[in-house]
């Protein structure tokens, strides 16, 4: 029951013409390309080949490793991805933040007559600990802890 890197990687190369319009080219790498370095070597070779064929400029390229989910799961009738659990985190540099928006949180974490969620709830605390231990801010700084209110927000639904 996990995500696995079994499908290989996708390389997207972006070109731009003299009018400023961009166009992508997409390539697929085999599953044996299982490191960033291997992907970069292949991507650079393809980039240089394309550069000789096009008079647009190559502005860069991205690589995605697709992770296959092996647990099909069960669709719960009341699940709704527009209902989010909002968990704000603060980074080591307090000006950097990361706000997690988890889709369709369990109803069991809700509190009566309030959108606020108790941060001491075992599942919420475990989730926050996993985010702090594994994720960073978009500038690469470590996350310290939850900072601010943890609450349920429903997109596309007017507040009372």
């Amino acid at each position, binding site marked *: 029951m996990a995500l696995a890197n079994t499908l290989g990687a996708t390389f997207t190369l972006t070109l*731009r013409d*003299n009018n400023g319009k961009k166009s992508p*080219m997409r390539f697929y790498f085999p599953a044996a390309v299982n490191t960033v370095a291997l992907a970069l070597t292949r991507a650079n070779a393809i980039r240089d*080949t*394309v550069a000789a064929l*096009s008079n647009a400029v190559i502005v860069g390229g991205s690589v995605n*490793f697709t*992770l296959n989910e092996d647990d099909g799961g069960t669709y719960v009738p009341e699940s709704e991805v527009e209902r989010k659990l909002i968990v704000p985190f603060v980074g080591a540099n307090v000006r950097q933040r990361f706000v997690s928006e988890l889709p369709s949180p369990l109803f069991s974490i809700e509190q009566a007559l309030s959108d606020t969620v108790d941060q001491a709830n075992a599942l919420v605390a475990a989730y926050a600990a996993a985010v702090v231990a594994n994720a960073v801010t*978009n500038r690469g700084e470590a996350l310290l802890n939850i900072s601010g209110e943890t609450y349920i927000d429903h997109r596309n639904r007017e507040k009372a």
Partner: protein
Amino acid sequence: MGPAFRLYWRDYSGKSSQQTFWLPDGLTIAAYVARANALRNAAKALSNAVITGGDLIFDNLVAGLAGPPAAESDIRTNLILFFKGGAGDVASWRVPSPAALGYDTDGEWRGTRLQRAALDALGLLDDLEAAAALTVQPWGDPFPSTFSIGGLDFTVP
């Protein structure tokens, strides 16, 4: 921005959603997958939606090339490069805004063709076939890497 992990969800009505987490630079793919699964497991325990997959995203991993585009460059014109394999399979690349590569012109609007010999004379044939051999089909089969012929395609605005 550094690497990212994107987690995909779907609910009972079929609507999809995604969550993006930023990850530290410089780890192995195995280490990234381990972090992705730690996040996935904690998130899954807290949600009643279904996880459908994920991506490890390395934006701007490949550097761009210096210099401006040519004045006549136009991504609405594409060079379609056809490749064939030993089993008779065929695949193609679509190269936006092709450079002047010595096309044969037969006078028709869609009649310009890039022959194998012309590409070879430019010293590009071997590199092209070697680059194609680095890739696979979207479903994982080997990409047919013997260049067959090229043709121009114009997108009329």
